[in-house]
């Protein structure tokens, strides 16, 4: 097969030397693009459902996450937050960690829709 006819089958911009590499790059790019498109489409709804939406509103989820983050049940998610107010967590003293050069957080892992049961248990007290 002449070089000309070989090249005529190749996509624009690809020459015969790099044809094989471009074929494998195309496969890898296809996998990554599919993964990123699915991530972009599904991340938000899956997160919302995992953390208790629509049973909990976004503001309630925000409050529950703050209570866990700072180990403080009195925390509430203030919304709308004052425009030039201090950072909401500034100066807090309740969060639990093992402090050191490698800090280790001590909050607990949150299970599937567990924020709902945590919230209901607290409200029942």
């Amino acid at each position, binding site marked *: 097969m002449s070089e000309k006819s070989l090249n005529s089958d190749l996509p*624009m911009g690809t020459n015969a030397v790099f044809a094989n590499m471009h074929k494998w790059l195309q496969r890898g*790019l296809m996998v990554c693009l599919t993964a990123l498109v699915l991530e*972009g489409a599904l991340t938000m709804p899956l997160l919302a459902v995992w*953390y208790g939406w629509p049973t909990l509103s976004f*503001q309630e989820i925000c409050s529950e*996450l703050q209570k866990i983050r700072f180990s403080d049940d009195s925390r509430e998610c203030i919304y*709308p*937050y004052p425009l030039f107010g201090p*950072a909401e967590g500034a100066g807090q003293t309740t969060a639990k960690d093992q402090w050191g050069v490698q800090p*280790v957080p001590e909050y607990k892992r949150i299970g599937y829709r567990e924020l709902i049961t945590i919230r209901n248990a607290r409200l029942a007290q």
Partner: protein
Amino acid sequence: MNQTTSPSLATSTKGLDEHYDQSRKAQRQADLWLMSGAIMLGTLVLGPIGFPVFLRGLSLQVKAQKAGLTVRPVLVTLVGYLVAIDAALNSFGWAMDMIAHHSLMNRTILTMWGNMFDAGYFWHYNELWIGGASAPGEKAWVFALLPIVFSMRLAAAIGFLQMKRWGHQWMVVTCWFGVVAWVGYVANMTIFADVRYANVVFPVVGWWLYDIFYISPFLAIPYLHSVNREIFSDS
């Protein structure tokens, strides 16, 4: 078409012009849908709307190709949109962390995401005076990579998809920035793995989902350096 029925040069040139005109229109139509979808996917919040929009663009692109129109090479489309979505996801997420860290949307979506995959966006969040992520080194990455890497990468991807010479050149530049960003960022997350992954919902799966699929520079760079640059136009 004229070019197949008439032997005259003038008529076949006209046919060729028509073909390019149709091709340009088809490519532009597909790109309007694809880029709108990509930007919406990049916001995460509008992702579910962006998904069908992006797929519609993809189907228009494939249809134009099957109709024999002169559209962009598949590899340019793949590289361009992979980089565009990667850059949009990082640009919007980090812009929220930098200037909108106390918005309700940021405090729910970003800290939910942080609690599930990367506690750099959950651990002591909104505690620094400057707000946003508090994990060691993270805020510095936000300031360095948002304006210098990801916003520029989004612009470069648009120029690249338009097959402009500057788009190709800026893709090369920002993809190499991307290599520095990816290696530095992954090293930071590994060194401070306790902060990032202790007690998050999906630590290992999360690492794979949100680091491995951002390796676009490693796939784009070999293509950018081996493609025939003459296919990108100066105008």
